[in-house]
């Protein structure tokens, strides 16, 4: 046993490993990604990135069927994709323990919505555990495997960004061997969910849930802590930690098992405190559940979206506020941006110039929606770009502007292929751009079917993207180097003008994958006419001097990609020396 500082994600991986899990599978998504990355590095395990969360859960179902324990990881919106197998796996149950880490993102630090996965547990009728720090992330994950096998059901472990990406101290333990399953025999009544069998498993699911409800009232996962009886607070996950910090004298009922809830324990807690409050973020899941048990919940003035903090809870209880320095609200915002040398940049520069209506997708390239490129009209969900472009075309297009879908390599493998088939099948037109930067970039560089890089060292295969698109039947397909700005533009102009459906694959590695960079460039001040064309690329290494309007390049950021060199008509951007000699461009 040793004490380590682990993030919640790392602790879930450790807990799965200690529980004897041999297979891990998932799809990267902030804030869940490091879980499977950590697991993949532990001894004696197999781990893989699946092409999407649905596939990941189906692979896991197969592992479970074969009798081994398995870990599945995804972010909250990934559970939408995996919902189809989840709901029916509640019916079939498991053989080897099946645990799904789902990481929610209250406050939407890196997500398109704030959906609360606790609702999925109740909806799919599968138990859910909610750790409140890394130590519990480890312990609860271990326990989740016991529950999965004991109650014959998949178990969700729900994290949030402040669990997944918070580090705290954890005592690790040795790995135990998972129980050896009985020899496999075909069991159609359990695993073949056609109506006759499903109807029986549906009734059996209610029996298992009833057992779980009883367990919820007995388990140490839920814990009533009686302090001052004036205030009683029910909370779970990181909100429990905020509550303990903000209102230390309050009695608390800490929910560790978010579904099914311990109704008896909740009623008893309610009867022993003067006023019962619920503190939760994202959704009012607990408050609604308590009211359905007939428990009176005293209203509390807390935001109904975004993250909670101890301070927000203190304010809600009208506790003294700290003395504050004055905030400076006048500062310019700092939105995230594409890196210097990013191969996506020239594509959006060209899209902006062609005035295309761009249906976008999920990845680093979604940043193409921001100024100064501002060349993306939509971002909804993984793969939506292609279906939405087809729909916009069906409706007669959007004036004279061409409709272009933009999707990344990993997102295309995740959910773009089905959309592309749909457009081909239904005789659609328009243009799809696949920005193949050879990596799943936004989540921190993971492998995917299009780059063929495996999560662990082993043989893997790269899907031939060009051949795939051709095989689907797209009449016009070409591969273009996105760093060649003239080629980017001419391909876009030609394909959007063509009457047939077309795909352009813009293929070049993510700037962060490029290890050897040429010397940076600098602006020759005398040659610069302050036309501002290079600045409009939105490269963080290029700025516009306040006094002269001329461009300057921060050589400590420049990676020498030459994108700006190609747009400068005055030959004003030239090579310079190495980064540490640079004394900085003065703005003021």
């Amino acid at each position, binding site marked *: 046993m040793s004490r380590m500082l682990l993030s919640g994600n790392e602790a879930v991986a450790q807990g799965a490993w200690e529980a004897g899990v041999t297979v891990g599978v998932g799809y990267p998504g902030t804030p869940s990604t490091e879980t499977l990355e950590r697991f993949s590095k532990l001894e004696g395990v197999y781990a893989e990135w699946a092409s999407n969360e649905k596939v990941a859960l189906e692979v896991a179902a197969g592992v479970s069927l074969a009798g081994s324990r398995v870990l599945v990881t995804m972010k909250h919106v990934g559970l939408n994709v995996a919902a189809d197998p989840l709901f029916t796996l509640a019916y079939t149950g498991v053989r080897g323990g099946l645990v799904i880490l789902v990481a929610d993102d209250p406050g939407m*630090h890196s997500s398109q919505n704030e959906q609360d996965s606790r609702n999925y547990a109740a909806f799919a009728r599968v138990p859910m555990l909610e750790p409140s720090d890394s130590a519990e992330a480890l312990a609860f994950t271990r326990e989740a495997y016991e529950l999965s096998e004991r109650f014959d059901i998949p178990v969700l472990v729900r994290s949030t960004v402040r669990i997944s*990406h918070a580090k705290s101290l954890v005592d690790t333990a040795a790995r135990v061997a998972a129980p050896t399953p009985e020899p496999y025999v075909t069991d159609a009544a359990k695993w073949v969910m056609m109506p006759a069998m499903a109807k029986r498993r549906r009734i059996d699911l209610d029996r298992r849930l009833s057992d779980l409800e009883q367990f919820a009232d007995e388990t140490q996962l839920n814990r009533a802590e009686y302090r001052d009886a004036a205030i009683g607070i029910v909370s779970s996950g990181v909100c429990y930690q*905020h509550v303990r910090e903000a209102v230390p004298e309050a009695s608390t009922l800490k929910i560790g098992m978010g579904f099914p809830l311990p109704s008896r324990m909740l009623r008893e807690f309610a009867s022993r405190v003067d006023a019962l409050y619920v503190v939760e973020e994202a959704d009012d899941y607990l408050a609604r559940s308590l009211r359905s048990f007939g428990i009176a919940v005293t209203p509390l003035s807390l935001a109904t979206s975004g993250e909670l903090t101890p301070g927000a809870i203190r304010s809600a209880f009208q506790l003294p506020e700290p003395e504050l320095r004055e905030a400076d609200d006048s500062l310019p915002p700092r939105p995230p941006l594409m890196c210097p040398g990013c191969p996506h940049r020239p594509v959006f520069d060209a899209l902006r110039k062609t005035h295309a209506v761009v249906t976008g997708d999920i990845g680093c390239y979604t940043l193409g929606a921001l100024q*100064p490129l501002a060349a993306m009209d939509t971002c909804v969900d993984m793969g939506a770009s292609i279906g939405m472009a087809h729909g916009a075309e069906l409706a007669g297009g959007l004036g004279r502007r061409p409709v272009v879908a933009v999707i990344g390599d990993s997102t295309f493998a995740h959910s773009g292929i089905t959309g592309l088939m749909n457009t081909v099948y239904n005789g659609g037109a328009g243009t799809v751009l696949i920005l193949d930067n050879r990596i799943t970039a936004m989540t921190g560089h993971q492998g995917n079917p299009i780059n063929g890089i495996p999560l662990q060292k082993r043989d893997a295969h790269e899907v031939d993207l060009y051949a795939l698109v051709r095989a689907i039947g797209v009449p016009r397909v070409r591969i273009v180097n996105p760093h060649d700005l003239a080629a980017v533009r001419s391909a876009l102009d030609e394909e959007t003008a063509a009457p047939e459906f077309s795909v352009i694959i813009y293929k070049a590695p993510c700037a962060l994958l490029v290890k050897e960079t040429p010397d940076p460039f600098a602006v020759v001040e005398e040659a610069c006419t302050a036309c501002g064309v290079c600045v409009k690329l939105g490269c963080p290494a290029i*700025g516009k001097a306040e006094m002269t309007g001329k461009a300057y390049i921060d050589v400590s950021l420049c990676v020498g990609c030459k994108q700006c060199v190609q747009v400068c008509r005055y030959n004003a951007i030239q090579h310079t020396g190495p980064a540490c000699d640079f004394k900085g461009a003065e703005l003021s």
Partner: protein
Amino acid sequence: MSGTSVTTVMLCGVGGQGTILAADLLAKVAAASGLDVKLSEVHGMAQRGGSVDTIVRFGDHVYSPVTDPGMVDHLVGFEIIEAARRIHYVRPDGRILVSATAIQPLPVLTGDLPAPHGLELILADEGAIFIDAEEIACEAGSPKSANVVLMGALSTGLPFAIEVWRDVISNRVPSHTIESNLRAFELGREACQRGECEQ
């Protein structure tokens, strides 16, 4: 106000500046010194050049991994605009260390918004100590060690033994950069002492 036995440090900067590694060093030093510790950071989209902060809290027992305005004991700004953006998080008697570096946000670079002026004066008024972290990092032999320079500066106001810092740094950074990082840490300490920022 509770939490007097817990110290809260906020590290802020621009995604990619190494705030996460620095926070990791600090959290490990606190843990190695026998304290409870929690660290909270945000990955993903914000890391792409956006405004980022990492919270490290340590003490006898730490509950929440996050903090609120008016509750931060030490603010370490890896970049001056980001430090100014979070000044209201610092307690009135809190300590403020700021790298003199300014990285202009994209709306300023493109000329859509004016660059903020006078931040050094405003921050100095708030009691900030300025550290030439990037210059010192180059002097230490690695331009990427500015984050460790700032940890050196921060260490002068924290109750942790230098040996613990040195051990944690040596175990955490790539082996060929141990020497330059230890030098960066030492130069950061010296710079802070020159700036008379010990409390």
